[in-house]
């Protein structure tokens, strides 16, 4: 080894101690997990796209998703889902602020921003629960679609099947994200990361949380806008 070093004039790359990715094992594995999760969501969204664009007609999102809580008999297309999008983006921001505070080792700030992130996640889940309940009252569920197509013909159950499957799978991700955030919040409050000397766990959890936000950006576009 010494001769190799002498010959090349620098440390040999296969001798160990090098970090080709410049990231810890845990962070790298979180990235690869998210990549695989991205493929799962892509498969769902692309199945949705294929079924939708092969259908002769499709319900109009502006008519289906036009209700907001506590306001009855009015037409407010996209308003509620806009609020949900804003909540999720805002909770992503508070998560970055928690990571940033973690870099400085500011425990109290991490706790503060983690709590706000959890509040945002719970608010989003509450909105989604309300929307699901509302659609269910209208008669929409897996296997039943009360909404008419744009051309006035009865809608295919593909519409509701895909909507509840994809937003449900995303909501499940948000739910597990909130759960992980709560665990990490308690670990922070107990001083686990201070003892470890690094707040990198906040970064890993943050990656997962931003991914949930990222998926929502696509779900929002494909279900509510297009």
């Amino acid at each position, binding site marked *: 080894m010494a001769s190799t070093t002498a010959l090349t004039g620098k440390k040999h790359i296969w001798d160990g101690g090098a970090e*080709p*990715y*410049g*990231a810890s094992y845990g962070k*790298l594995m979180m*990235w*690869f997990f998210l*990549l695989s999760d*991205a*493929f799962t969501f*892509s*498969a769902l969204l*692309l*199945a949705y*796209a*294929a*079924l939708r*664009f*092969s*259908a*002769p007609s499709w319900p109009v999102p*502006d008519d289906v998703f036009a209700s907001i809580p506590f306001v009855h008999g009015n037409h407010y*297309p*996209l308003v509620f889902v*806009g609020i949900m*999008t*804003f909540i999720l*983006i*805002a909770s*992503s*921001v508070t*998560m*970055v*602020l928690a990571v*940033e505070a973690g*870099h*400085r080792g500011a425990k109290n700030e991490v706790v503060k921003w983690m709590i706000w992130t959890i509040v945002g996640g719970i608010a989003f889940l509450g909105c989604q629960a309300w929307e699901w309940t509302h659609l269910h009252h209208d008669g929409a569920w897996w296997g039943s679609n009360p909404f008419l197509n744009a051309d006035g013909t009865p809608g295919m159950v593909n519409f509701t099947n895909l909507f509840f499957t994809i937003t449900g799978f995303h909501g499940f991700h948000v739910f597990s994200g909130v759960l992980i955030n709560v665990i990490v919040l308690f670990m922070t409050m107990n001083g686990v990361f201070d003892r470890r000397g690094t707040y990198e766990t906040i*970064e890993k959890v*943050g*990656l997962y949380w*931003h*991914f949930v*936000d*990222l998926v929502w*950006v*696509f779900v*929002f*576009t494909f279900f509510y*806008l*297009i």
Partner: protein
Amino acid sequence: MSHETASFQKKDIMRVFWVLTAITAVEFIIALAIPSSFMSKDIKNFMYIALTILKAFYIVAYFMHLKFEKINLIYSILLPLVFIIGVIAALMNESNYWSIVR
């Protein structure tokens, strides 16, 4: 650690937040304020997807910090996504066939 803190600070975080909010606002304006006689549904859909990819770039590059990682890590995450383009091509072909046989 100190390098990362220097590269992405609170004011940068808020800047990205406002960019994301502004892009979403533009999507709403396209959806609600622009009549379909002025802009066809196809052009609108194209703009939604373009703006969505732009938003995805900001989230992945800045919030997920990928822009500041080593180039090896960036390629490991981004290059496999090429397969998704393959699935898009396959399913466009397939859904075209379904709509013919329906």
